[in-house]
């Protein structure tokens, strides 16, 4: 198994509160890893450590190592470069209040000067990869806020893909969506893993079962158990994992 991201003895603090406790896990490349666990257990915090979004919050502290392509993301990476390589999709779709085209072109334009033709290509390919192209190709100039929730979320995924990431972090990407839009995103995730490593936080057990290859169970800032999704769901080693999966708490 080839690890895209390796986490070693990771601790994370909000001020004095320890939100992540000695986490070590390898995230396999080109697979979908689901993070499950009850609210407030540290899944989202963990996700936000991986592309250093937590840097934006004051009074936070990280201990331990996060290795991406063998390099420590807190020491050997420029944070802008890191976020380009490790993209993030948020819980609520957050397209910018601009046209569909400009939403996708936003990222590439930040990082280098691309000519119009090249940019057009990036936009089209990103939208195709996010399975949105056919729905928006005739309204590229329209405001992205006019799209449906599911379309907005796929637009946000396309926006990430446009800067050429290797890893996609998804923080409950379907929790604000209806079942049909959710199914589309799930199909998309399964397609995307061919090219990208995906880490997805979900509260939906069935979703984790449907789309993930690996699952990690978080509880109170610790990883209780992680492994192949089948194993975790059918033969959990820890009693707490079993209780959570069978719906006894959470």
């Amino acid at each position, binding site marked *: 198994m080839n690890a895209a991201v390796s986490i070693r003895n990771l601790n994370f603090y909000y001020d004095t509160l320890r939100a992540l406790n000695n986490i070590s896990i390898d995230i396999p490349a080109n697979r979908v890893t689901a993070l499950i666990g009850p609210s407030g257990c540290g899944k989202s915090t963990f996700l936000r450590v991986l592309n250093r979004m937590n840097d*934006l919050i004051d009074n936070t502290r990280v201990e331990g190592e996060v290795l991406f392509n063998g390099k420590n993301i807190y020491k050997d990476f420029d944070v802008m*470069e890191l*976020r380009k390589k490790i993209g993030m999709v*948020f819980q609520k779709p*957050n397209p910018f209040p601009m046209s569909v085209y400009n939403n996708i072109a936003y990222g590439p334009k*930040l990082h280098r000067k691309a000519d119009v033709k090249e940019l057009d290509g990036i936009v089209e390919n990103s939208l195709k990869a996010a399975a949105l192209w056919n729905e928006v190709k005739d309204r590229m100039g329209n*405001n992205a806020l006019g799209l449906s929730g599911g379309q907005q979320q796929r637009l946000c995924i396309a*926006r990430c893909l446009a800067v050429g990431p290797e890893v996609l972090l998804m923080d409950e990407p379907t929790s604000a969506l209806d079942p049909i839009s959710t199914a589309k995103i799930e199909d998309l995730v399964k397609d995307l893993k061919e090219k990208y490593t995906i880490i997805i936080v979900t509260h939906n057990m069935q979703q984790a079962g449907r789309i993930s290859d690996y699952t990690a169970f978080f509880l109170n800032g610790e990883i209780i158990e992680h492994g192949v999704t089948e194993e975790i769901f059918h033969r959990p080693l820890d009693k707490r994992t079993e209780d959570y999966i069978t719906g006894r708490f959470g």
Partner: protein
Amino acid sequence: MNSKNISQRAAFLVLKTASMATVAVLAIIVLYIMSNGLKHINPAFFTQKPVSMGREGGIAPFIKSTIYVTSVALAIAAPVGIGSAVYLAEYSRGLTPVRIIRFCTETLAGIPSIIFGLFGFVFFVIFLKLGWSVLSGGLTLACMILPTIIRTSEEAIKTVPMPYREGSMALGATKWQTIVKVVLPGSIPGITTGVILGTGRAIGETAAVILTAGSSLRAPVSVTDPGRTMSIHLYVLTMEGISNEKAFATAAVLIMFILGINFAANKTVKLMRRQV
């Protein structure tokens, strides 16, 4: 009908009366000035120089002065104000110096304009040797409207949703790129409103400019020339009993300016909102 319902109706009536009273006061002032002023206004009033201290003739030089002084004030206060607002809202949430800066701007907003005038007179006119001039008047007005611009711009910037910022940063944008490309475009309608409010205050201000811009009857040619704004002219006409007719006519023009600016601002902001 039970007592709860009666008290609700009574409260509603009181509130409605209060808001109607506001509209009524504005309407009465505007109507009174207009009915007394408009009959003395003709095209020549806008284009001619005043004759014998303003007893006859028009107010062309004073319209010019007003526009000059206000433009100077805006040219200084808008960039400084918007810059401070960005700093306060984006770079320094919750820091101690910010609380001090915020306290200062709030206090600045409450200082009577005659004190700004006195300050401008001592500092710009005498100490910096700028003399009674469009520049001194503009600088003084800039100080005065700065708090308005900072406050409204800061509020506008804060209303840009956090997820926009996160979305941008997550794509590898720097904070500055995020501010320029996402935050400022999203807050332009609000910032514009703030700048317009400041303009409105500056245009009608008298006390702060009477001590700094002077009251020359000639139109200023450069920023170092003295000039008499419409509000100063109005003040002088009334105080010295020169001409009540011309005073009302000047007041009517001033009110038209302010109404015009507010109307244009409303339209612009609506247009921008639609584009966003």
